C-alpha cells in the first residue's frame, strides 16, 4: 500500500517536521491547552511583589481556603479591607502629602490611590470612605490565571498539609508585579512530582505518606 505514495508521503512528513521544528525554535508556541506564562491584566493593579515580597505577608493570610478547602480561593474584598480601611494609598504618596502639609502648616489630607478606589467602590464606600447606601457592593471580577480543566480535581489541602511551598507550583509569586502562570499545569508535570514523591516515600525510613499516581486520584 505504501509502494506508490511512500516517497511522497515521506517527503511531506519530512517537510512538515522540519517546518515545525523551525517554528518551535523561532517562537514560544506552546502545545495546545498549556498556558505557561499567561499573565492577564487584572481589573485592579494588585501587586504580589509588594504584598508577598516587600511586606512579606504569608500566602495563607489571604488565600485561606488552601488549608480548609479544595480551592485556595481569591480573598473577598472584606479581607483587603482588613488593612486597607486604614491604608488608603502607597507609602510614598502619603509621605509626600505629610511633608507638603507640614510645609503648608495644615493637617495632612487623606490620600486615596486610584487602584484602592476600585476596592472602595467594590464595597460601596463613598469619597470619605463611609458606607454609602446608594452604592451596591459589587465583587471584583478577577481574571483566573491558574485554571485546570473541569475533569481534573486538584485539592490544595493535601499539598499544603504536606508542606509544599506555594512557589513550587505557582512560581516566585513574591517577585511578580502581576501574577503569571509559572508551571504548565499539565498532567505530565503533576505526575512527575507524584512519582518522585512516591519514590521518596518508598525509601527506607521515610515518614511521608505514600503518594499515588492512580488515575482516580485526580480524575473522577
Amino acid at each position: 500500500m505504501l509502494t506508490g505514495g511512500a516517497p511522497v508521503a515521506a517527503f511531506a512528513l519530512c517537510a512538515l517536521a522540519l517546518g515545525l521544528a523551525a517554528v518551535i525554535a523561532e517562537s514560544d508556541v506552546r502545545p495546545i491547552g498549556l498556558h505557561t506564562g499567561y499573565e492577564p491584566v487584572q481589573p485592579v493593579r494588585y501587586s504580589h511583589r509588594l504584598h508577598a515580597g516587600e511586606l512579606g505577608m504569608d500566602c495563607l493570610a489571604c488565600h485561606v481556603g488552601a488549608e480548609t478547602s479544595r480551592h485556595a480561593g481569591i480573598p473577598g474584598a472584606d479581607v483587603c479591607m482588613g488593612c486597607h480601611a486604614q491604608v488608603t494609598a502607597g507609602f510614598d504618596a502619603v509621605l509626600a502629602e505629610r511633608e507638603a502639609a507640614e510645609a503648608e502648616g495644615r493637617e495632612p489630607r487623606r490620600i486615596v490611590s486610584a487602584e484602592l478606589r476600585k476596592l472602595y467602590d467594590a464595597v460601596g464606600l463613598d469619597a470619605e470612605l463611609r458606607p454609602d447606601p446608594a452604592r451596591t457592593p459589587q465583587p471584583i471580577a478577577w481574571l483566573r490565571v491558574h485554571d485546570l480543566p473541569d475533569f481534573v480535581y486538584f485539592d490544595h489541602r493535601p499539598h499544603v498539609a504536606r508542606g509544599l511551598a506555594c512557589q513550587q507550583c505557582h512560581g516566585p509569586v513574591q517577585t511578580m508585579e502581576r501574577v503569571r502562570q509559572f508551571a504548565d499545569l499539565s498532567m505530565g508535570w503533576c505526575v512527575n512530582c507524584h512519582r518522585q514523591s512516591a519514590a521518596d516515600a518508598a525509601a527506607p525510613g521515610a515518614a511521608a505518606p505514600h503518594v499515588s499516581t492512580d488515575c482516580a486520584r485526580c480524575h473522577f
Partner: protein
Amino acid sequence: MSTDALPDAEIAVARDALLPLQRAGVGRRTFLQLAGFGAAAAVLPACSRAPDRHVVPRLDQGGEPVGARYRIATTCGGCEARCGVLATCRDGRPLKLEGNPEHALSRGGLCAVGQAELLGLYDGRRADGPQVRGRTVTWDEADAVVTQALREGGAGVRLLTRTVTSPSTRAWIDRFVRATGGRHVEVDVPSYSAALAVHEELFGVRAVPQIRLASVRVVAAFDADFLGTWGSPVAFARDWAESRDPDAPTPRFARHVQVESHLTLSGSRADIRIEVAPHELRAALAALCAALAGHASRPAPTGTAALAPGVGARLHKLAAALWAARGASAVLCGADDAPAQALCAWANHLLGNYGATVDLARPALHARGDDAALAQLLDDLGEGRVSVLIIDGVDLAASLPDARGVTAALKRAALCVSTSALEDDTRALAHVVVPAPHALECWDDAEPVVGHVSLAQPTVPALRAGRSLRASLAAWLGARGDDFALVREHWSAELHALSGTGAPFDVWFDAVARTGYVHLPRRAAQEPRPFDAAAFERFVNAPATPVPTSDTLTLVAYDSVALRDGRHAQNPWLQELPDPLTKVVWDNVACLAPATAARLGVRPGDVVRLAAADGSSVDLPALAQPGTHPDVVAVARGYGRRGTSRFAGIGPRWIESRPTPGADGVVGARVERIPPGPVHVVATGRATEIATTQDHHRMELPTHLAPRGGAVRDVARAVALAEIVAKGGGAPPHHAPPGAELWPADHAPRGVRWGLTIDLSACIGCSACAVACQAENCVPVVGRDEVRRHREMTWLRIDRYFSGDGDDLSVEHQPLMCQHCAHAPCETVCPVLATVHSEDGLNQQVYNRCVGTRYCANNCPYKVRRFNWFDYAPDDDLRRLALNPDVTVRSRGVMEKCTLCVQRIAEARIVARGAGGAAPADGAVRTACEESCPTQAIRFGNVEDPGSAVARIARSDRAYVVLGELNVQPGVTYLSRVRDTEPQGGGARDD
C-alpha cells in the same frame, strides 16, 4: 499500520524525518500535538488563553470557604412522614440530601422520594411570585384580592389542605379559622379516614396509632404496604430490619405475613404472602379474628364468609403465631374500609398490642384527613356556599374520580386560591396562585408523631419567590412576619415549655436548629378510652363490599414508590426510577395476574380499556405481573398529570427519537378518573411498547450458551430460616471453592481495598440507593425512548427476580453496581487503558482516555457499565445546579459506571491525612447508596482490614459473591436473603 509492515529503507526515511524534532527535544506525543496545532499556530502566533475566565470572590468571606462542604439539618417535605434530613451544601446550595441520624424516627434513612426532593428544588418551572388570573402580580396586590374576598366571604371560607404536620402552621390555621368563621378540611390521598373513624369510635382517639415494629415478633399486614408507601415507610423499614437479625447468636427474626391483593414492596419481602381480593379482605380479617377468638376462648366477633381454598388454613396459622407473640405483634390494615379497620383494631386489642407495639396514646399525626368533611366541602361547593377556597398541597381535581364533579365544583367557588408552585389540574382552576416555597428553602417544622418534632430550615436563598401557607395566613390576618419569625414565635410560646429543658429559649432553639430534631417528652398523651364493644358491633355489621361479577375485575389504584399520589409527577428522577416491582419507567400500567392476562388474551404492552360501571374509562398498557390476585387489576396512581407535558423535550433529539409523554401529551394515564371497584377490562386492539428495565442488563446466560442445559445462574440467593436454626446459627456457607486463576495476581495487596457488602435479607428494594446514586454522581435522565433502547444511565440498578406465582411467589431484590473485580474482565479488553485498577482496589474509569469502543461493557459479566450515546442535557437549565461539582459530567461517547463514590473517598482521605492519620477510619467514608439505605443493608469499607465492618459482615456464612464461578474476585459481597417460610408450631406449609 505498524512499523513492522514498512520495508527497512522506509523506516529509515521516517526515522530521519523525525530526527530534527528529537534533537529539539520533541517526543512523539508532542509531535502529534504540534501537528494538530500547526495550522492554528500559523494564524495565532501570539495567542493568549481564550476565552479568559473570571473568578469572582464573595464580598464577605465569612462562613464556609469556597468549595468546602457543610451540612444543614432540616426536614424532608416529600411526604407527611417528614423524615429528618441533612442537606450537604457547598457554595451556598444543597447538592445532596442524606437522612438525619439524630431523628428518632427515620434514624438516618431517606427514601427515593426524599432523595429526589433535591431535584424538585432546582425546578425552573416553579412559579416565581403570586399570580392573579394568570397575571404575575406583587404580593401586596395578591393579598389585597384575597383579603377583600375573605372580608366578604364570612362563613363561606374554606381551607383545604393535605394533612398538616407542622405545629406552627396548624396554630395559624386555627387562628385563621377562628378569625374568618370558615372551616379547615384535611384530606389524605390515599385516605386513612376509616382508620381514624374506627379509632375515634372504639377508643375515643381520632388518630392512626404509632406502630413500633422494632420489638415485634410477628407482623401481619393487610393491604398495608408499610415498607413502601403506607404510613412512615423509612421508619418502618428500619424497625422491620432491626426486628429481623438472622446473624444473631440466637436468631431474632420477626415473621412478616402480608395479606394483599397485588404485589407491593412489603409483600415482596414478606415471609408468607397471602393473596386475597379486595372484597375478601374483610372476610380474611374476620377469619383471623375468629381464629384468635378461638385461642382466647372467646366468641368470634363476627360471622365468617367463605375464602379461597387454603387461605383460611394459612390465616389460622397466622393467628397461632400472633397469639404466641401476644403483646409483641402487630396487625396492620391499610384498607380504607371501616369494618376491616375495626376488625384489625379488635385483633390488636385482643392481642394486647395497644399500649405495646401499637401506640394510640402517642399516635402518629401524618394522616388526619376526613372524607366526610371533604364530601361536605364538595356539597358546599356544589350548592354555592363557598366564597373563598384556599387549597394547599393537594391536587384535588386530579385525585378524585371525574364522576364526583370536582372540576365543576371548584369552579363554583367565588375565589379559589392555590398554593401549588407547579402546574396541576387544581391550580389551573384557581383564580389566585400564591406559590409555596420548596421545603429546602424555607423555615418550617413537623411533628409526624406526637412528641417527635423536627425543624426545617432554608438550605439555599429562595430560588423562586414563594410564601408558605403559614406566612400567607398570617399576612391575610394582618400579622406580617416571615416564616422564621412565625416558626420561632410558635416554638417559643408553645414547644419550649414542653421540651423539659432548663436552657433558655434562644440556646435551646439554636441547639435544635443544629441537630434538626427534638423530642418533647411533655407533649400531652391522649389516654385512649377502654375498647367500646358496642361501637365495634356497629362497624362490623356494615354492608358488604361489592363482589365483582365474573366478567369484571376489581380496580385497585395504589401509590407507587416513586410518584406516590402524583405530587412528584414532575420530578424526572422519580419518573425514570424503575418501579421496584414492575420495573416500568415513565408510565403506569394495568397489572394483571398472568393467568388473567392469558384468559383475556392480553399480551404485555397491549392497551386495555378499564371501564367502570358509571361509564368512565381509562386506557392503559397491560402487564402480566405475578403476585396480582386473579380478580384484580392494579394500577399506580399519580400518572397522567397535567404538568407532565413538560417532559416532551426530555431526552436526546435525533432522527428516530420519540417523545416521552404519551399520545395525549402527558406521562401515563390518570387512573384516578374512574372510581376504584369493579371494572370491565377489554383489549382495545392497540399496543404500545412499555419502557421497562426488567430485561436490560441481564446476567443470565442465553439457553444455547449455558453450560448444563441452560442452568439459571444462582445470582440472588435465599436461605430458609429453619436451615440457620437447625445449624445453630449462621447459614450453610455458599462459598464455592476457587477455580483456576485466569489472571496473574498482579494487584499486590496494599492494605486498602474498598468494597461493599449488601445484605439481601435487609434490602427491601425501595430504590432509595438508586436515586441517591443518581444525585451524587450526576447521572443523567435519558427519557422514555432511550430507556426502551436499553440506554438508561443508572449506575446502580436493582434487579428483581420472580419465582413461583400466587401464594408461592418469591421475589428477590438485588442492588447491582460495578463489582470492582480484582480480576476485572473489563480491564483486559480496553484497547486504550481507559479502565484500569487503582492501588486501593477500585476499578477506575478514565473518561478522558475512553474512546467508546464499548468492549468493556460487552465483557462485563455483571452488565453494570453504561455508555453515553448522547450528551444528555437536563430538561431545565436550573437543574444544572443539582450537578455535583465534585464529579465530572461525562460527555457523549464515553463509558461510565459506579466509582464507589471515589470523590467521597478522596475527601475522607484528605481529611484523615490532614488530621495526621494514614487512612480514613472505618465508617469515615460512606457511599451515597449506603448513606441513604433505610435498612442499612449496604455497608462500605476496607475489606482488607479484618477489623472493619464490611470484613466482619463478609465473614458471615450467608456471604457470597455474584457469579463467583467466574473467579473475577469482586469487591462486593452479598448476604443471602433469609426467609422464615415455616409457620411456628412446626411442620412445613401445607397449602
